[in-house]
């Protein structure tokens, strides 16, 4: 069994009346790309700041690499790389100098540092921009620089707090591929986002947060299995009577039927050949229809079912 890298036990963080983290517990294992998924204000960044010992908390304990985390635990800190939500670089230093500066806070040996910085530049694909100042970089390139500053020292645990906000698709793909590559090289990754597609794409395990609580935890398959909804079939329909709608509701495994603006949405909880059964019924009843879609549940559906609201609400 993989070793525990991060252990959060019953963490509570209050801002006066507001409870930002409500007995939040979590265990992250070595080699995982762990996704913290939740809407804005759900407590993702608060969790990260507590993990890094930047933020005080009211209750609970945090262990990283088997050691109690504290602001002066430099041994643990030296193994962590952090990429914050907002870009944190010096405007007056070039791309190369910025990476060198932050790497230098972790690596004292000059020759080794140079090697690490060169590798980080290559890793994020900024070879052509090493002498550029941050203000001359596009949003995507700036994000890549931000990542390079956080991972140049080859940390064993990398924490990325929404690193793809306001990033172009090309840079986003580059960043996501890079995170997977870092993971393949042995780093454990904690990735927070409110982009479910990203989390679905790269995370091996996911915790869904809402109002400072972990409301669901598991692999994406495990999370989807926890849902009532297993399939949604949408049919563009010309005309259907109330009686016929009731018939559809009575089909096997159907638990919800809605008709809005000519789109019939039929939700199923389990079962096989649901599409075939529905098509057969429509043909038997001579109901004319257009396009037909069959959709498996997404993490957004998972989130919707657990919280009753959309992920980006």
């Amino acid at each position, binding site marked *: 069994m993989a070793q525990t890298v991060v252990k959060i036990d019953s963490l509570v963080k209050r*801002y006066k009346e507001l409870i930002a983290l409500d007995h939040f517990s979590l265990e992250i294992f070595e080699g995982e790309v762990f996704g913290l998924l939740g809407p804005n204000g759900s407590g993702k960044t608060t969790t990260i*700041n507590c993990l*890094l*010992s*930047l*933020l*005080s908390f009211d209750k609970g304990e945090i262990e990283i690499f088997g050691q109690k985390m*504290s*602001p*002066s635990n*430099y*041994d643990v*800190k*030296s193994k*962590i790389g*952090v990429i*914050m939500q*907002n*870009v*944190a*670089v*010096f*405007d*007056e*230093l070039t791309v190369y*100098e910025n990476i060198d*500066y*932050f790497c*230098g*806070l*972790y690596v*004292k040996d000059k020759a080794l540092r140079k090697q690490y910085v060169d590798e980080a530049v290559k890793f994020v694909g900024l070879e052509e921009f090493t002498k550029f100042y941050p203000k001359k970089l596009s949003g995507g390139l700036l994000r890549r620089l931000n990542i390079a*500053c*956080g991972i140049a020292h080859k940390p064993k645990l990398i924490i990325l707090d929404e690193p793809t906000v306001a990033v172009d698709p090309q840079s986003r793909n580059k960043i996501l591929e890079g995170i997977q590559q870092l993971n393949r090289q042995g780093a454990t990754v904690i990735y927070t986002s409110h982009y479910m597609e990203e989390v679905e794409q790269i995370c091996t395990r996911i915790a869904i947060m809402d109002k400072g609580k972990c409301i669901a935890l598991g692999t994406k398959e495990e999370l989807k299995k926890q849902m009532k909804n297993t399939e949604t079939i949408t049919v563009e329909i010309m005309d259907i009577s109330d009686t016929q709608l009731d018939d559809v509701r009575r089909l096997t495994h159907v638990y919800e039927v809605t008709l809005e603006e000519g789109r019939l949405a039929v939700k199923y909880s389990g079962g096989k050949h649901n599409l075939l059964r529905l098509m057969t019924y429509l043909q038997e009843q001579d109901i004319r229809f257009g396009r037909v879609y069959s959709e498996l549940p997404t993490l957004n559906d998972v989130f919707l079912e657990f919280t009753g609201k959309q992920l980006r609400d």
Partner: protein
Amino acid sequence: MFLHIFKYQILSSLRNKQTVFWRFIFPTVILATLFQVAFGSLFETTEKMQAIKVAVVCEQKNIFFDEVMKSVCEGDEPLFEIVTEDEEKAEKLLHDADIVGIIYCAKEPHLAVASEGTRQSIVKFFLDQYIINQQLVMDAAERDPSQLPALIDSMQNETNAVYTRSLGKGNNDAYIQYFYNLLAMQALFSYLSGLAIITNGQANLSEIGKRTNAAPVRKCLTALAGLSGELVLSFAGSVITVLYLVFVLKKDMGVSIPVMLLITLVGSMAGISIGFFFGGIGNAGYDKKNGILTAIIMALCFLSGLMIGNMRAVIEVKAPWFNRINPAALITDCFYSANTYGIGSRFYTDILTLVCITAILTAGGMILTRRQRYASL
């Protein structure tokens, strides 16, 4: 680690246009040159002691008075310059303010002036003194002429008791204090550096602060390295200004260059520590704190006489304690005392007070930066 942070602190500050402007260009090129243009020759033309222009109109012959007037109008630094002896012309000159007054030579000389002022007072004092002495001599001659030589001796001794004493080898140009204030302001504007250091070192004040706090580095080490780098740059700015004043503008500062550099070094330390300490209080952003601190520093400079020359003297009368703790006034007073009295107890008191202010504020800033975790970010 220290040298790594120190190097990048200097590099980033040197490339910061705003810092370079306020540190090097504004005080040196703009203000110093402006002050030189405005005040450079003002002292020579208006304030330096020059012979007082008077007219002497003879109403009645007085050979004693003639002799005295002759003696005070001679020499390298004559007290009076007699412009005319014609009464009608004298009255016109007095009316046009081309002369200070008309001295009427008579048995008892008297004076006519058109206005009040220091120079008019000097002429009146001179005449009063002459009349008293003339009366003493005449009385003595009438009572006991044998005592005249002794009386004249005592009058000479009295005169010799009042002599010009140079307090230092400095420059007695009253406008030189504007240049002292300029150097004080430049030193204190180093607060910007202290503010930047604390902002970049605190997780609740900047994103760079978060990253720095997440790194395995002691906060006091990063702060000290940053402060050292900024002190080097601030001092370099002061060195440039001092050299510019002395060698380019040919300004006689009245204080030797090493002493000026010592004062500006200590002043820069005080300035940086002000920004470092006050920048660490509260969660307000850099821009807001910068605005508040700029206003405070400008107020301190104003109260030390940067805008109104005699303001420090006014404060000395109204609230002398404030001049003892106002860094701008202390820096200015360092220059002033070194120029006027030489390096002495007053100078050392000022310097030590500045060092104490620096030590207290830096220690306070360090305590603020040592905070382990933040309540909110």
